[in-house]
């Protein structure tokens, strides 16, 4: 009769979680403040394993936070600041109501502010942590930096975002960290490798935004507040890791080059420097000016056996990367006014090229169109009137495709007015069984150093692929065929029987037997397949379920790949037919 009766929901997982409303009450914050706090501190709801237990037996949909997280928030100094701010707003309202403008002024002077430094440090204890989480920060900052001053957010925020993104881009240029670029319909994706972390961010196209009404800009602004702080600290650290000055300064040499008599036309003096920085055409000044950074050679360690291969592979990769970094070295680009200047300048500079543009487009152009040493002019219009002989006129996609292919691609496909080859995503890594577009195959061949093969060969390759696919199909079909044969036999027999039953004399006929060629390999295969089928029958229910799921996924994948291949084939055939018709005409 021992002890008290245990009450329900007083121990275990029910005590580890807290609902949102309770958390809010515990913190004595309004919902917007609570939301802001969660955003800043990176607190997110947790999905309990047993929802019903946590929810005290109810199955109502609720969001749960970890109680520990909320306790952790209780000690946050920013909560106090939020309360201060609430009081401030109240006082201000009252002062306005009483038209005590001196009081308003005094209150405004004492407007409570807060800093997020400690939160950043707390959320990202190490620099690498911060780098890992910087993707969202970059995306957001790039988005906000393209906002117009329409009152959707503070002008200072926009300017800060712009500054930080420009700093980031300058760092990427200085570190030559860019790896991949992808022009999508959403915007331009960039991927850079910073301190061994792959960082991908998306930059929208330079158009004014059609601001949607169903978006809460306060939430976005709170995120941006956090992200700008994070990005600032990250930039600082990154600049210092490269011995660059922070806030960034242009190289003295570059600065003198950029000096122009009419620079006042572009911007006010105060904004001019940022504009020049954002032109991305000049290098940054370093704390210690080193003439040439020495190549960091990989140290050789004595290794045995297996590791040698790995090491070699690594070395090879390293070399390839170094080569990629110098992709555009020695090339001089000139951007026409209709191409996206910032993106192209950024990419070209990241790979060591020189770039300039029309003076009227942006500040910071370094040479004119008439410069004879220009090797490539990037143009995005059907034709151009005055062409120089000693330079290529190419479309902007060439630059991006080169970067993704890591080799300078042949320029012929990208000339003016030429139908461009498809622009492929560099982020897709095809595994076995995935569909690989033929263009990718071509590029991979180029990377391997093979000469661009003739069309014929390509076709052969394709056909081969198709054949393989067909083979696979055959395997599946075999059983059916067999069945069919049997069925045919049976039909024959039935016929005979019928005849017999009708009392007709059988037409006795001996047909010459056919020698069945025994394909030993095939037999073996079949046997194996059957074995597998039988073994699958013996699987446990749970495992079978899992297995079926996996196999379903696999099948779907192949189905999709086949569908794509079929689509491509149909398209190519149509194209070919069109071509033929044309030639006939």
């Amino acid at each position, binding site marked *: 009769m021992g002890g008290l009766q245990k009450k329900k929901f007083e121990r275990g997982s029910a005590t580890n979680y807290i609902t949102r409303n309770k958390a809010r009450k515990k913190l004595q914050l309004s919902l917007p403040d609570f*939301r802001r706090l969660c955003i800043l501190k990176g*607190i*997110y*709801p*947790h*999905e309990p394993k047993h929802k019903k237990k946590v929810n005290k037996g109810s199955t109502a949909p609720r969001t*749960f936070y970890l109680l520990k997280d909320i306790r952790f928030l209780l000690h946050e100094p920013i909560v106090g600041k939020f309360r201060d701010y609430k009081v401030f707003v109240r006082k201000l309202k009252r002062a306005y109501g009483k038209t005590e403008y001196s009081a308003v002024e005094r209150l405004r*002077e*004492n407007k409570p502010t807060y800093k997020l*430094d400690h939160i*950043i*440090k*707390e959320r990202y*204890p190490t*620099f690498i942590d911060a780098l*890992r989480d910087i993707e969202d920060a970059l995306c*957001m900052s790039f*988005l906000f930096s393209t906002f117009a001053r329409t009152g959707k957010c503070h002008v200072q925020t926009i300017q800060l975002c712009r500054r930080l993104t420009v700093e980031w881009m300058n760092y990427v240029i200085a570190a030559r960290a860019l790896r991949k670029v*992808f*022009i*999508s*319909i959403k*915007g331009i994706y960039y991927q850079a490798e910073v301190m061994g972390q792959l960082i*991908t961010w998306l930059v929208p196209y330079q158009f004014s*935004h059609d*601001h*949607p009404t169903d978006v809460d800009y306060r*939430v*976005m602004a709170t995120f941006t507040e956090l992200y700008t702080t994070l990005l*600032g*600290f990250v930039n*600082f*650290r990154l600049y*210092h890791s490269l011995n660059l000055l922070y806030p960034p300064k242009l190289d003295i040499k570059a600065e003198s080059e950029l000096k122009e008599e009419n620079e006042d036309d572009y911007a006010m003096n105060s904004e001019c420097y940022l504009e020049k920085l954002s032109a991305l055409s000049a290098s940054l000044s370093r704390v210690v000016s080193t003439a040439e950074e020495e190549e960091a050679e990989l140290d050789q360690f004595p290794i045995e056996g297996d590791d040698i291969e790995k090491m070699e592979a690594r070395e090879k990769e390293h070399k390839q990367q170094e080569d990629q970094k110098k992709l555009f070295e020695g090339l001089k680009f000139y951007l026409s006014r*209709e191409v996206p200047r910032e993106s192209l300048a950024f990419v070209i500079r990241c790979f060591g090229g020189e770039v300039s543009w029309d003076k009227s487009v942006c500040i910071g152009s370094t040479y004119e169109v008439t410069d004879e040493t220009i090797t490539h002019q990037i143009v*995005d219009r059907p034709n151009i009137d005055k062409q120089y002989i000693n330079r290529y006129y190419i479309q*902007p*996609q060439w630059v991006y495709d080169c970067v993704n292919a890591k080799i300078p691609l042949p320029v012929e496909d990208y000339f003016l007015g030429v139908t*461009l080859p*498809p*622009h*492929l*995503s560099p982020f*897709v890594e095809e595994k076995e069984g995935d569909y690989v*577009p033929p263009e990718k195959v071509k590029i991979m061949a180029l990377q391997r150093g093979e000469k661009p093969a003739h069309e014929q060969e390509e076709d052969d390759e394709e056909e081969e692929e198709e054949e393989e696919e067909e083979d696979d199909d055959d395997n599946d079909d075999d059983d059916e065929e067999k069945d069919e044969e049997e069925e045919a036999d049976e039909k024959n*027999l039935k016929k005979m*029987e019928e005849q017999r039953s009708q009392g007709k004399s059988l037409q006795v006929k001996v047909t010459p037997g056919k020698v069945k060629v025994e394909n030993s390999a095939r037999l073996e295969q079949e*046997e194996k397949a059957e074995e597998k*089928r*039988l*073994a699958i*029958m*013996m699987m446990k229910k749970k495992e079978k379920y*899992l*297995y079926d799921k996996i*196999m379903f996924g696999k099948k779907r994948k192949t189905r999709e790949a086949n569908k*794509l*291949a079929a*689509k491509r084939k149909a*398209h190519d055939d149509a194209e070919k037919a069109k071509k033929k018709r044309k030639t006939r005409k």
Partner: protein
Amino acid sequence: MEGSSGNMRSSEQREEMKKIREKTVKKRSKQKEEEDQDQIFNFNYKPAEEEEDEEDEDLSDSEDSVYSGLEDSGSDSEDDEKEGSGDINDDDDDDDDDRKVESEQIQQTEERKRKEEEEEGVTDEYEHDSSDEEDIRNTVGNIPMEWYRDFPHIGYDLDGKKIYKPIRNKDELDDFLDKMENPDYWRTVHDKQTGSDIVLSDEQVELVNRLQRGQFGEVNFNEYQPSVEFFSRDVMIHPVTNRPADKRSFIPSLIEKEKVSKLVHAIKMGWIKPRRVEDDSRGRYYDLWASEDSSILAKHRMHLPAPKIPLPGHQESYNPPPEYLFTDEERALWEQQDPSDRKLPYIPMKFSSLRQVPAFPRFIHERFERCLDLYLCPRQRKMRVNVNPEDLIPKLPKPKDLQPFPTTQSLVYRGHSSLVRSISVSPSGQWLASGSDDGSVRFWEVCSSRCVKTVQVGRAVKNVAWNPNPSVCLLAVALDSVVLILSPSLADRQVVSSSERLLSGEQEVEPTEGAGPVIWSEAEGEELNQGIRLKIQHPKAVHQVVWHAKGDYLASVMPDHSSHLQVFIHQVSRRRSQNPFRRNKGLVQCVSFHPVRPYFFVATQRSVRIYNLVKQEMTKKLQANSKWISSMAVHPGGDHVICGSYDCRLSWFDLDLSTKPYKMLRHHKKAVRGVAYHRAYPLFASASDDGSVIVCHGTVYNDLLQNPLIVPVKVLRGHVITHDLGVLDVTFHPTQPWIFSSGADATIRLFT
């Protein structure tokens, strides 16, 4: 009266002004020229002046004109006198005014002369008359003079007398002549109010010119005089004013004291804070991660980093390969789908060049959704199953190593015209009996697939069972409510005779059996010729007959919910039947004898009961875990049972292990119709409506600790599914690893 009183007032005022002016006459004398111009502004005076001064007066003297105007009105004559003589008493004057009006008028001419004399003395008084806007002669005020167009006068003077228009108006001709002749025409101005022309003097013209040029009226006025700073930063010796300081400037102010004390109190209480120093550290960056300590890291153990946004594939490209673009159907499908169901949140698009790419309309939306995901989405740690599917497949011995087992279809027995319900092989393995819905029982030779005998029984045969005793050759056939015992005479003479003996031996005993629910009768005539020996009439339709291993006992099943008369056990030698169960324990599906021991298996819908026939009690109840058992087979060893069920399952019971199935085999896609054990080989088979027979290897070990090994070894197909029925019965050959199956397609097949 009002008019007069108004006049009085105005006159009084003027007098006062005059007095003041008199005091300052001397000072002002310097500024005489200025005042001239003041006069000029006041054009109203001019016409009057001209009128009078036509003959003699000089235009330049404006003071005269002012005065003459007054004089002209004739109102202030007396006032003027008094002024001239110095004011004696103002009050009396007013009274006098009225009285003297008439006399004044008479004396006008005289007075004028007098005044002219006086003027010399009084001129200064009027020099500073600044009331320019005040028209002294015409009192109509500032009205459009057209109103007086139709009257002979143009207004009233100060005394209320009419001012008459000049007698002769100038017409065009006059005007023209004037223009031509008068050299001063250009400087003549018409005064509408008095209806007179004024000729401007040179000074006046000059003044007008200067004003037009935007200059000061006075020639000598210096606009750029150095300003004298009255209050300067230099400390003067003398105070600006000589006024002694107030007393209050020496006494501390009480109000101020109160205010200060209030402020001090507020500061003390912390209500007023000092002005905040602008904190410039905000927005300034430094090396935040200069000292990375791992102590904070420990806090983050529960932290689940947000998953990154998946990277874009080829289809998101602005210029994707053509196969990634939507066809019309795909696009239609995409548009129909709910946004949450769509595989892609956008439609892939192709642009021929970069400049044609528009802004993505949902960009901000997507960012916002990401934000929401980051702070609103519950996170849960989920272990990703990273399993190689090959690893999931159990490692079983290869079927090749478990041979022999039937692998190929070798013979088909044709002849039945309807579905073959049941088959049975003779203990010798030479003959095969089959019962079909076409109302016939056929006997086949196994090796040649020849039908050696056909017995027409007339009704659909439910079940056939060959007597397992090799020394007799009998076949039990269940059809409708009758069980027939056939002696097909397909064996040695000796065997046939022994079986005849078995059937005949009981005849003596037969009558002892009273009239029970079961009636034994002997076949006669035609039936006898066909080989039918005995008929056992049951009260209900019999579904199954089973022989005991010894071949003397026979059990029949009549499934029925309502009664306890479901199972009968017949003894053929004594022609006796008995119902072993007193109570109805469910719908009996099938029964079976234990091969060696006196046990009896009864399968109801969901369970199998095992009865000890000697002790007359139930020893075990097996839970089949299936909905409806269809068939049952007992291992020749007697320790294992398999049950097939209509819900596609085959359950293997190890009687030593548990009452629950040791293994559930879900090999079939459709209902399992029949199961069978091989008598000699470790094989068992199941037949199903999906048209397949699955042969499994099932080794049973003598060691109790080792579980039976069950391996499916072959899926045999051949039967055609008709009317949704596939294989109905399955039997093994008693000695060979062969299997027979009968199907709904009216065939029997042998797999070897």
